[in-house]
């Protein structure tokens, strides 16, 4: 009998009088990709930061099924437990790769560092695994000793993905993973993410304002406005048959090419 991986119950975060996100509840299952969409200021990034424990919510809880099958409220974890989770069982792909990479160490070290966090010590193994992962994200082996500073935006983003996935996390958070990239680079990245998520059976929570990204990558989506989830469901149903005025506006605002 399968169980959810994450159970979120009435999560809220306010910044003084201003509401970040309010009363959000959902479950995420293994292998499921959830997109959180909405415009700037809708609360989607606040929600992502609460879920990934980068922010402390004002109220509510998020329970996570740990690798030993024990359910833990994320906000009851010690700082050390939280860090360990972040470095091993979770990934976080930032919109700006510079936020998720170490720009002044080599590409290989960026990937190897995460492996060492889960106990890899053998240099040869670390290097060969790093090469393998660079290959999976379509970075040539001869770039392994280069610093990400010398990489293009698309390459940096692919390196960030490799760095996150090398520890075989069960849950990956992504914040606008294709934002700020050229469309042709976006397409390649989307295809890559789609393939990796399916092959590895990852669960993922993807924040995006781009409905095409949500359609391509996610099984299910939540639409946020003013901190609240106003509509949620199967991705193609929300996009093909939106119910809420705001969702209808979002869907009808997509430019056709």
């Amino acid at each position: 009998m399968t169980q959810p991986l994450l159970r979120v119950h009435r999560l809220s975060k306010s910044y003084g009088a201003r509401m970040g996100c309010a009363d959000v509840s959902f479950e995420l299952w293994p292998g499921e990709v959830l997109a959180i969409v909405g415009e700037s200021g809708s609360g989607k990034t606040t929600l992502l930061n609460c879920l990934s424990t980068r922010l402390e919510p004002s109220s509510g809880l998020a329970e996570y099924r740990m690798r030993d099958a024990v359910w833990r409220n994320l906000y009851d974890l010690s700082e050390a437990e939280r860090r360990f989770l972040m470095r091993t069982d979770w990934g976080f792909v930032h919109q700006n790769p510079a936020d998720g990479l170490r720009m002044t160490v080599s590409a290989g070290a960026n990937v190897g560092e995460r492996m060492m966090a889960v106990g890899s010590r053998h240099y040869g193994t670390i290097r060969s695994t790093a090469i393998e992962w660079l290959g999976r994200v379509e970075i040539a082996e001869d770039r392994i000793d280069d610093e990400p500073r010398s990489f293009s935006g698309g390459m940096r983003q692919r390196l960030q993905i490799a760095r996150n996935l090398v520890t075989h996390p069960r849950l990956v958070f992504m914040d606008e993973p294709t934002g700020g990239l050229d469309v042709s680079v976006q397409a390649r990245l989307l295809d890559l993410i789609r393939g990796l998520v399916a092959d590895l059976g990852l669960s993922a929570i993807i924040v995006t304002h781009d409905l095409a990204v949500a359609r391509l990558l996610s099984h299910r989506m939540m639409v946020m406005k003013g901190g609240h989830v106003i509509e949620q469901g199967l991705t193609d149903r929300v996009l093909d048959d939106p119910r809420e005025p705001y969702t209808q506006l979002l869907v009808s605002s997509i430019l056709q090419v």
Partner: protein
Amino acid sequence: MGRIPGVKVMTPLLSVHDVAKSFTMHLRDGIVLPVVEGVGFEVHPGECVVLGGPSGAGKSSLLKMIYGNYGVDAGSIVLRHHGQPVDLATADPRTVLDLRRDTIGYVSQFLRTVPRVSTLDVVAEPLVDRGTGRELAQGRARELLARLNLPERLWSLPPATFSGGEQQRVNIARGFITAHPVLLLDEPTASLDATNRAVVVEMIAEKKRSGVALLGIFHDEEVRAEVADRIVDVTAFAPRRAA
């Protein structure tokens, strides 16, 4: 409902009961566009039921409701899923995805392409998703594409730049590759030439022989006459407009 002696009663694979659907257009002052109401019919194993009626009667919308792309306002859409009845109209997203993986397939009018994915992988994907090995799935994809006369030099290319007829054949191959017990077809022959139309008619006949329940829209009268066991007139479900 009692059984009639001497008549074999088969369980339908799809039964639609009293389904109603309207769209509320919030951006147009909240006007309500009724689509259908009181929709009811069944599709049994091995039969092809064709939805009839003029454009705008709600045929494509009905297929989208049965596949779960559109929600419904009322009624039930019951599929036999691993031997158990499951109502798709009220199912949660995970159950709908489960139904789509194992029970209900859909050949849409237009192919939604993914950048960079080859035609062969587009066609093989539904099998791979269901656990078939990639090589085996690709082998099956090759057979279907060859049968549908799609030139082999196109197989390694993404179908985004293909002609309408070529994309439609990719879509058909993708829809027919699995053994889904229920298959929805939205004008699968609309942009095909006579040779390929005949291939599709033959493929539909094979699905019927293997016990698949098919529900489709076919504007081509010749094709419809060849594949249809029964026609359900969608105009019968036209909403009685209030006011």
